[in-house]
C-alpha cells in the first residue's frame, strides 16, 4: 500500500496542482477555461468531466502503450479520448440535463483540450497504469481548481450569486432602490482571461523559481 502512494507517486499527483499546473503554468486548456466559468456549477462539472477523461484516457492508453503501432499512435489516442468524451456527454445529458445545456458544445470540445493529449503523450505512453491514473487525476484537478477559482469571482461579481444562491441582497441593486450594479464585464470571456492572468501573477510571485531568468 505504501508503494502505491510513494513519494514519487504523490509528487506525480500533487505537482499539477501547483508548480506543474496545466492552466496557469503550462497555459493549456485556456479556451474552455474562459468559456464555462461564468457560473460555479458548470465550472465544477467541467472540472470533474475533464478529470474523468484525463484519468481514464491515461489509464487505458498506459495499458495499451506496448501494443500501439507507433505510426497510428495519435489516431489511437484520439479514438480513445473521443469515445470517453462522448460517454461523459451522454451521461451528463441523462443525469445532469440542466448543466449539460449550460456546457453545450464545450463537453464535446474536451476532446481538443490540449491537457488530455499532452498528458497521454508526455506521461501515459511512458509509464505504468497506476502512476498514469494519478497523473490524470492530478492534472484534471489542477485544471478544475483554476476553473473554480475563476468562476467563484465571475459569478460573485458578475451575478451576485454563488452556485446559484444569492449572496448580494436584492435590495442593494439600483433597480430596487439600492446603490449596487453587477459588473457586466465579469460575464464576458475577456474577464476570465484577465482573472487567469491575475492568478498567474499571484502564483508566480509566491513561487519565485517559476520566473524565467532572461
Amino acid at each position, binding site marked *: 500500500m505504501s508503494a502505491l502512494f510513494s513519494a514519487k507517486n504523490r509528487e506525480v499527483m500533487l505537482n499539477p496542482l501547483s508548480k506543474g499546473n496545466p492552466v496557469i503554468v503550462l497555459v493549456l486548456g485556456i479556451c474552455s477555461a474562459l468559456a464555462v466559468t*461564468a457560473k460555479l456549477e458548470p465550472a465544477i462539472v467541467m472540472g470533474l468531466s475533464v478529470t474523468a477523461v484525463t484519468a481514464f484516457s491515461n489509464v487505458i492508453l498506459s495499458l495499451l502503450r506496448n*501494443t*500501439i*503501432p*507507433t*505510426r*497510428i499512435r495519435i*489516431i*489511437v489516442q484520439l*479514438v*480513445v479520448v473521443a*469515445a470517453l468524451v*462522448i*460517454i461523459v456527454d*451522454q*451521461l451528463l*445529458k*441523462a*443525469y445532469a*440535463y440542466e448543466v449539460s445545456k449550460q456546457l*453545450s458544445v464545450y463537453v464535446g470540445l474536451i476532446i481538443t483540450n490540449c491537457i488530455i493529449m499532452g498528458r497521454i503523450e508526455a506521461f501515459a505512453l511512458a509509464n505504468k497504469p497506476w502512476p498514469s491514473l494519478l497523473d490524470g487525476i492530478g492534472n484534471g484537478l489542477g485544471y478544475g481548481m483554476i476553473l473554480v477559482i475563476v468562476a467563484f469571482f465571475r459569478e460573485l461579481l458578475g451575478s451576485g450569486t454563488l452556485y446559484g444562491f444569492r449572496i448580494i441582497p436584492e435590495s442593494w441593486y439600483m433597480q430596487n432602490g439600492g446603490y449596487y450594479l453587477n459588473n*457586466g464585464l465579469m*460575464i*464576458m470571456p475577456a474577464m476570465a482571461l484577465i482573472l487567469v492572468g491575475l492568478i498567474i501573477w499571484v502564483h508566480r510571485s509566491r513561487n519565485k523559481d517559476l520566473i524565467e531568468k532572461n
Partner: protein
Amino acid sequence: MNKQGNTYTFLYSVILVVVVAALLSIVSLSLQPRQNENRQNEKRQNILSAIHVSSTAANSADLFDKYIKEQFIINAKGEKVSGKAFDVNIEQQYKKPLAERELPVFVAEVDGATKYILPIYGAGLWGPIWGYISLDDNKDTVFGTFFDHQGETPGLGAEIVTPHFNEQFRNKQIFSGNKLVGIQVIKGGNATGPSEVDAISGGTITSKGVENMIKNYLTYYEPFLKQR
C-alpha cells in the same frame, strides 16, 4: 508478430474501432430513454412557464396534465388536423413551406379562464431563438411569454429569458382593431402603446428577433386567432 508492420497496424485499428463503436452504441441506447424524458420535461416546463406556472423537472408532468386541458394541431388555414400537439417538433416544422406546416395549439385553464398557448420560433443575433406565447380567451390579450435561445450574448441579448423582460408582454394586445400587429419591441424606453414593449439595451438585434418571431408566428395562426 511485427508490431510496426502493415498487417498488425491494420488489424489493430479495425479491432479498436469495432470495440469502441460497440461500447458507444451500448451507452447511447441504454441512456436514451432518460435523455428523451429530460427533453420532454423541459418542453413541459417551458410551456407551463408561458402561463406563469413554475415547475421543476420532477413535477412538470403532473402540472402539465393539471393545467393543459386540450391540445391539437391546426394547418395554416386554421383547420384542425390529426396528431398530438406535444410531439410536434417546431424546429423541423419551421423548415417546411407554410402550407404543409403543422401548427400546435395548447389550451390551458388557469383559475377558471381559458388560455391559448402557441409556440414561436425565429432567429436571434447568433442563432435560433424560440419560446411560447399564451393568449387570453379573447385571442387578443397576451397572458404570458417564455423565450429561450441557443447562444445570444450573455448580459445583452440573452436577457430575453429574464422575468423582467417577459413580464412586459403581459396584457399587451396583438390586434389593433381588426388588424394583426403583433408586439413591437421599441428602443430607448419609449414603449407606451398597447402593443409595445421596451427593447433590451445592447440587445437590439435579439429584441427585433423576438418581435419578428412573434409577428411571424401570429400571422401563421391568424385564421385560428380570428375564429372567435
